[in-house]
């Protein structure tokens, strides 16, 4: 089995199951009455956090990981993680729409318009829809690789929107959302052209140097 086959046939199915675990855990906690005093809040927070975690993992970590490890086949995992992120975002939104607002569209729209953290989160969710919808092989063929790639750049905005959504909703302790923001920024630095990145990385310089060194080796 080649490395690519190993990733497609072994890693991918395993990851598929692993990414179901957060949901399985919520369901298990639900049945065993372990969701805490405010189960709706627990479900909302957990689904939201997993949507964000997978989004960051997907949008930003896979490419640097490919560069660092020089295992380019890792890219084959990216679409599945992305669809999972959308799946958790959908659960997050549905929890909010059904359990917070009993599907009262007026109240939901009022929230979206009046409350910046909802505006940002909802926009990020809307942007994920076309990405999830075009995540099949057929859609890639229909759109053509170039247009598909351009469309899927939206995922950076989704990631940023998700982080800001989190940052704007906490009351005083911004430590956790700031962690996500830091991860977002660090991983975004990998998107910069190598020579620009060198200037920004500061404490990350050695890390950046190492990856560009690896890149150079790869090119030569």
């Amino acid at each position, binding site marked *: 089995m080649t490395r690519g086959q190993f990733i497609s046939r072994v890693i991918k199915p395993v990851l598929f199951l692993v990414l179901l675990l957060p949901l399985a855990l919520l369901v298990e906690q639900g049945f065993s009455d372990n969701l805490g*005093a405010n189960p*709706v809040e627990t479900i909302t927070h957990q689904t939201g956090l997993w949507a964000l975690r997978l989004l960051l993992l997907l949008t930003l970590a896979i490419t640097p990981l490919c560069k660092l490890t020089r295992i380019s086949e890792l890219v084959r995992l990216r679409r599945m993680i992305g669809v999972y992120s959308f799946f958790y975002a959908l659960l997050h939104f549905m929890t909010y729409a059904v359990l917070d607002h009993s599907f009262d569209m007026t109240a939901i729209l009022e929230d979206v318009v009046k*409350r910046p953290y909802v505006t940002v989160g909802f926009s990020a969710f809307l942007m994920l829809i076309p990405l999830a919808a075009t995540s099949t092989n057929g859609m890639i063929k229909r759109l053509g690789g170039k247009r598909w790639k351009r469309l899927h750049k939206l995922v950076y905005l989704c990631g940023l929107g998700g982080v800001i959504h989190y940052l704007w909703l906490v*009351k*005083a302790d911004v430590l956790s959302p700031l962690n996500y923001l830091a991860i977002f920024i660090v991983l975004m630095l990998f998107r910069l052209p190598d020579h620009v990145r060198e200037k920004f990385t500061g404490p990350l310089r050695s890390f950046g140097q190492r990856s560009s060194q690896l890149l150079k080796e790869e090119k030569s």
Partner: protein
Amino acid sequence: MLIKKPADIKPSEITDQNTYLNRRAFIRDSGLLGVGIAASVMGLPWSKQSWAEAAPGKRVYPALAKSNFSTDEKLTDFDDATSYCNFYEFGTRKSDPKENSQAFVTSPWSVTVDGACEKPGTYTLEDILKPHTLEERIYRLRCVEAWSMVIPWVGFSLGDALKRFQPTSKAKYVSFYTLHDAERMPGQKRRVLEWPYREGLRIDEAMHPLAMLAVGMYGAELPNQNGAPLRLVVPWKYGFKSIKSIVRISFTEEEPVSTWNQVQPSEYGFYSNVNPTVDHSRWSQKKERRIGNWLKQETLMFNGYADQVASLYSGMDLKKFF
């Protein structure tokens, strides 16, 4: 039928506390779930209303006077009320206070009284409690985060306690301070808020008979995570006004600092009366989720205490003084 009201014999006299604390496991393990459900439906001692529930190491109060101020709404589950807490002194997650406060020592405890009053000084907790008859008051509690509970507090009217310090005519406000000791309250090691936590009331609000100093809940001493050994309960205001673990009471002429107002004045006013018509700047206050329910319910003006307290604010623009 022979079964009468269950109140005559205190449950604490029948069941030793360990057995009692393990009652859920007991019910489950012995397959008596059906009996438990039947008992709770019939209002026998399994139901929360007639049980005293104590956190580990906390004393159960003997007979408590009942109060006319009590609501007859269903009590919040004791475990929920003691595991879902906002008490940043012990951490910012809802589960932190219970986890991080178990070693907190609340005895001896004293409260410093100062400012515009005739009887300033440092009083032991026992001094403060001595003249008062403890009573149980079942109040609604509405958090600014749009959830709510129904809690049976044990305590007495705040005004009765304050009068003993003989506030002077200059005492227009009263200010409260939580203990500031990062060794004992590990959450204070991070500067999430400006420690110590402070809250305040206008003197007429403080003297209102609904305002209460609490030393217990669910028939027993306050669990540490709920503000032991002495806390404020102001049921018509958002929960953060009901300051916990009080060590200082100060009578002032000027409006005192209140911590959340200091954090974000546009979001948390000094008054912070429960008001469904004034939204928090980031979320709606029209509805609330009663802990234990899945769907939200309407929030009431002054948390349902409008008949008693609305007159305190007559002529005031509550959208401006939110």
